[in-house]
């Protein structure tokens, strides 16, 4: 048999095996239950504040999805490489004609598949909850509009429907998924040189907070310290290494019903891909030099 430098079949085998491994983890089920609980409880909270029912519902659901997928991305990815090293499974895989880059890409692909499935399940549940609440509120609203004509009621309900299932929901969900993918790639990079799972998780969580705070810190720094070249170089290097995770959050636009500009959406997508590819390439470079 001749050797192939790259084999999609080998990569698919590693990715699907990683997905199988992660779906059979108890932590995954616990986190899924956690997300289901949060989305379910949003239904309860929404009932308490009638005026802004759907805003609160979307806020809680999107927040829960973002938190759950981020946690899942970090916790699931952090264990993959150390576990394979501890079980010596990495030896049996890499003692075959499997290039190290295929192993790393396969592992990440498995996590991204898991995150995609999780996002699909949560989004479906979210839309079901929205639909059920819409049915309930529409019936109540129709009763409240008893004096209006049938046509006026239909128009009012259609407006309601358009507001609830606004077009900006989809890009909002895509961006949540992209953020989770980015965190998975970052976690994988850290786990290539980390010696323990805890180190990987803690470091990624620190980067997660830096990513969320860096835009605010940058503005504050520039206001306080001015714009010396040294300060700018420092900020530029921080901005390059750590993604601005605040960008990966469209919940304000979704809750207030504002349209998400296509340019902004495109910029966030491009930024997400840039960081995923950057972290993946760095992970491959580090893993290639590692002695197993």
């Amino acid at each position, binding site marked *: *048999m*001749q*050797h*192939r*430098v790259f*084999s999609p*079949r*080998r990569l*698919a*085998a*590693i990715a699907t*095996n990683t997905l*199988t*491994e992660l779906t*059979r983890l108890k932590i995954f089920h616990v986190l899924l239950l956690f997300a289901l609980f949060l989305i379910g409880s949003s239904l309860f909270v929404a009932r308490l504040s009638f005026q802004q029912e759907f805003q609160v519902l979307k806020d809680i659901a999107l927040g829960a999805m973002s938190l759950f997928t981020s946690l899942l991305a970090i916790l699931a990815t952090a264990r993959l490489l150390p576990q394979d090293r501890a*079980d*010596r*499974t990495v*030896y*049996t*895989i*890499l*003692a*075959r*004609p*499997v*290039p190290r880059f295929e192993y790393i890409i396969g592992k990440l692909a498995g996590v991204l598949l898991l995150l995609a499935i999780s996002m699909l399940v949560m989004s479906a549940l979210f839309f079901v909850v929205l639909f059920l609440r819409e049915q309930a509120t529409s019936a109540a609203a129709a009763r409240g509009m008893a004096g209006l004509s049938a046509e006026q009621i239909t128009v009012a309900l259609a407006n309601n429907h358009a507001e609830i299932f606004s077009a900006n929901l989809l890009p909002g969900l895509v961006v949540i998924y992209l953020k989770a993918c980015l965190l998975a790639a970052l976690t994988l990079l850290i786990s290539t040189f980390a010696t323990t799972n805890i180190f990987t998780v803690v470091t990624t969580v620190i980067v997660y907070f830096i990513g969320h705070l860096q835009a605010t810190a940058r503005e504050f720094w520039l206001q306080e310290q001015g714009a010396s070249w040294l300060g700018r170089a420092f900020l530029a290097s921080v901005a390059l290494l750590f993604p601005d995770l605040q960008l990966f959050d469209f919940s304000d636009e979704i809750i207030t019903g504002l349209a998400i500009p296509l340019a902004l959406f495109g910029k966030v997508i491009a930024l997400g891909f840039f960081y995923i590819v950057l972290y993946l390439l760095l992970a491959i470079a580090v893993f290639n030099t590692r*002695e*197993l």
Partner: protein
Amino acid sequence: MAELLVEKTAPAIKIDRVTKTFPVPFTRQAIVAVRDLSLQVEPGQIYGLLGPNGSGKSTTLKIILGLVAPTRGKSEIFGHDSRTVGSREAVGFLPESPYFYNYLTGAETLAFFGKLSRLRGPTLRTKIDETLALVGLSEARHRRLSGYSKGMLQRIGLAQALIHDPKLVILDEPTASVDPAGTRDIHRILLNLKRRGVTVLLSSHLLSQVQEICDRVGILAQGALVREGAVEELLALEDRTEVVLRDASPELLREIGALAQKSGAEVVEERKSRTTLERLFLDATENLASEKRRTSTAERPTSNGEPPRRDPS
């Protein structure tokens, strides 16, 4: 990029003056794991790499497999540099005390490793069946590895190393934590591989087992190869000869002693021939097992409920 993987004229393994050092973090010191090691394994041989714990056996195997880069020197598999991924196309490897993915069943494990060697479809399914039968795990094919015993894990480890019909099999302590019957089965499989022309390199510190199956051995101590050669040559004591007699009377033994003395030779030792403890264990356990099988067959009622007929013989 395509490359020819098994060059028939090249040695299966060639290690040339390999040294491997591991730096000690935060110091200027380094640990020498392998020291100026050269050895060659010819195709079709069973080669045993012996040595105490920490002698550099596992590091040597990792260097051969390209998992660790040598500090100096070079390693080749069938003429290809071990650092190239393509050199491992025809290699099967079983690491020491493997665990594998315990959420997979035996068959799923072999399917995964088969796919990594680009097997698929009916070929893969056939290979899974054959390899499970070879290592005696056909009955446990649908059980998850989390329910496997240590011996079974070792067998499934051997199976994954053989699923793609490798030309070279590298085994790190293959019989560690395996009972004598399991060890004998593994030896039988390895000897069968040898008959098919497969090269086997195994590391072990169980010397009697290595002696049984290896053609050549290399002894490592503190990272250096201290002895190397064919087993028969290494073990032979050139100035001594053994004669094994059955039913020899004391008179005959006295006469032999006198004859030896007369010709200037010396009877160094005279003792009863012994079996090995392993042979004794296997005979005892196998006899018991076959006795149980015979009893249960004899006691099993026939389909019409009558007691079984005894064989008149």
